[in-house]
């Protein structure tokens, strides 16, 4: 079918607007991170950096500080980066593991209250985090979990579990029951079937759940602001601290922001390979 010029123009305009809308801020962050500090206040604003520098990254990563006479932020940045990575990965692994088991139980086991329980868990998606923040804080204090990896990861898990559970349940429901029945007749038990038949076939679903959880945990701000004040402080909480009363360090903010963008992007690119569907082809009809 040949589309009219107007029609195509319309589509391309839409695509362009969307691209600028979503990629614009990212581009600005990346561009600013290699712009010398003096140029930040230059007017008019240039779309392309006029001069190129890696000074901000040097400061951030603590390389050759003597030359630029910068502040020592590397230690803070390193620990925040590490904290972000550790809590996000821990939350992802825990969340996917728990929701996979849970979703399988909700799909294939019959027990009283199954639908109600599932509904209740998923309904917690509708509860805004700030509504439960204070009671949660009290609970975490009494469990001595504030400012610990475990504590933060568990909060993330509770935040993303319902979504992941819901997603994985529909993934498991779509798997042909006859495969599991065949395995049952072949002598496999429930857990064996789960690990050797169901999980390998649910790869794309598990990957999607992992990506959602990782990205969600990576971008959390409010929760770590309260629950990760010091030793487990992640990037999201550290970066705004480069804004002080008298000085906004655009260089550090955009350099650390760039790194904070690149890591989840790498994770998504890496996991994307496992999102391929069509794994089931040829098993049933």
């Amino acid at each position, binding site marked *: 079918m040949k589309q009219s010029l107007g029609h195509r123009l319309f589509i391309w305009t839409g695509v362009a607007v969307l691209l600028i809308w979503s990629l614009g801020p990212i581009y600005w962050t990346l561009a600013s991170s290699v712009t010398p500090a003096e140029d930040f206040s230059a007017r008019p604003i240039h779309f392309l950096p006029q001069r190129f520098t890696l000074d901000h990254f040097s400061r951030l990563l603590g390389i050759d500080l003597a030359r630029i006479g910068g502040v020592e932020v590397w230690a803070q940045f390193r620990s925040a980066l590490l904290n972000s990575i550790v809590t996000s990965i821990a939350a992802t692994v825990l969340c996917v593991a728990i929701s996979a088991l849970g979703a399988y139980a909700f799909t294939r086991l019959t027990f009283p209250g199954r639908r109600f329980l599932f509904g209740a868990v998923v309904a917690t998606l509708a509860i805004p985090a700030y509504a439960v923040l204070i009671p949660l804080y009290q609970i975490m204090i009494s469990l001595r979990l504030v400012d610990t990896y475990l504590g933060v990861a568990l909060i993330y898990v509770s935040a993303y579990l319902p979504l992941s559970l819901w997603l994985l349940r529909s993934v498991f429901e779509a798997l*042909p029951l*006859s*495969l599991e*029945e*065949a*395995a*049952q*007749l*072949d*002598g*496999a*038990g429930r857990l*064996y079937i789960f690990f050797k*038949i169901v999980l*390998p*076939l649910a790869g794309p679903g598990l990957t999607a759940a992992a990506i959602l959880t990782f990205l969600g945990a990576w971008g959390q701000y409010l929760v770590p602001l309260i629950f990760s004040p010091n030793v487990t402080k992640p990037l999201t909480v550290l970066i705004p601290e480069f804004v002080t009363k008298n000085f906004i360090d655009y260089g550090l903010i955009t350099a650390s922001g760039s790194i904070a963008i690149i890591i989840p992007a790498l994770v998504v690119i890496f996991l994307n390979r496992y999102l391929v569907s069509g*794994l*089931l*082809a*040829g*098993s*049933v*009809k």
Partner: protein
Amino acid sequence: MASVSVTNVRKSYGHVEVLHGVGIEIEDGEFVILVGPSGCGKSTLLRMIAGLEDISGGDIAIGGKVVNEVAPKHRDIAMVFQSYALYPHMTVEANMGFSLRLAKAPKNEIQQRVRDAARILGLENLLDRYPRNLSGGQRQRVAMGRAIVRQPQVFLFDEPLSNLDAKLRVQMRSEIKQLHQRLRTTTVYVTHDQVEAMTMADRIVVMRDGYVEQIGSPLDLYDRPDNLFVASFIGSPGMNLIRGHISTDGPVEFIAADGGRMPLPGKVDLERGAEVVYGLRPEHVTIGEGGVDAEVILIEPTGAETQIVCRIGAENVVVALRDRIAVSAGDTLSLIPDLGKLHLFDGITGRRL
């Protein structure tokens, strides 16, 4: 190998009963086919034998031992699913060896048995492939291979050929039958296709709406259907069934609802005026002098035989002739029913008279 006995088995889903007391005795080594229209409960019964469905009432015994409460994996049965249910992430070899690996059989034994099964089924060159790289017929063979590798007490098949094209279906039909003749494993096979049932089974169980209508060898069912349902279900083209009654006076004759008259065998002992159904297979009619007049409506040559649809009074009757005769639509034929092979059914209960 083992016998399977199904005694007064019932199955309900919620308040709906779908099997109403089914009883079947299957002997050791027998090939039994459950046949019936879609939705009559064949798969449900098969799955109950497999242990995939709970038994709401009655008993199922395998090898003389009641297995109602025995888990599927301890029943020593293998099932071939309609959808094949091959594990998509495993090679053909891994699919076939799955149960043996689970049972922790020695590696070389697994390999040996998988190779043997593959040889029987002509799968030797496909062992490294994944199910997605196989054709429909090959997948079907792998599914069977997975079953025979187990060397189970009983094979269960649920419409295994329904996803294949017509030609392959005929071929697989004879392969499955040969396989059974070779292995002699008790087999319960479900199909809705009466031709499949007739050609493969030692005995056929005809089911309808959760009841067993008749159990017998293929030729039993063909020669002596117990009731109208079996009479109409078995045989292709189907038996001609004409409603009417026995003449109330004059010579003993069958009088169709529209008034047409058909001859009856001399020895019949039927009440005058009784409502009956006159059943005549298309192949049990010849053409000759002094028969019943019929107008030719349609001629369908199949090569081996010629099927002629004709009309006696207001009734359509199909006649299958071995001889090729020169007739055309609108001609009148004189049909002579083979009275020795006539079937009469009670017009009210549908039972054979």
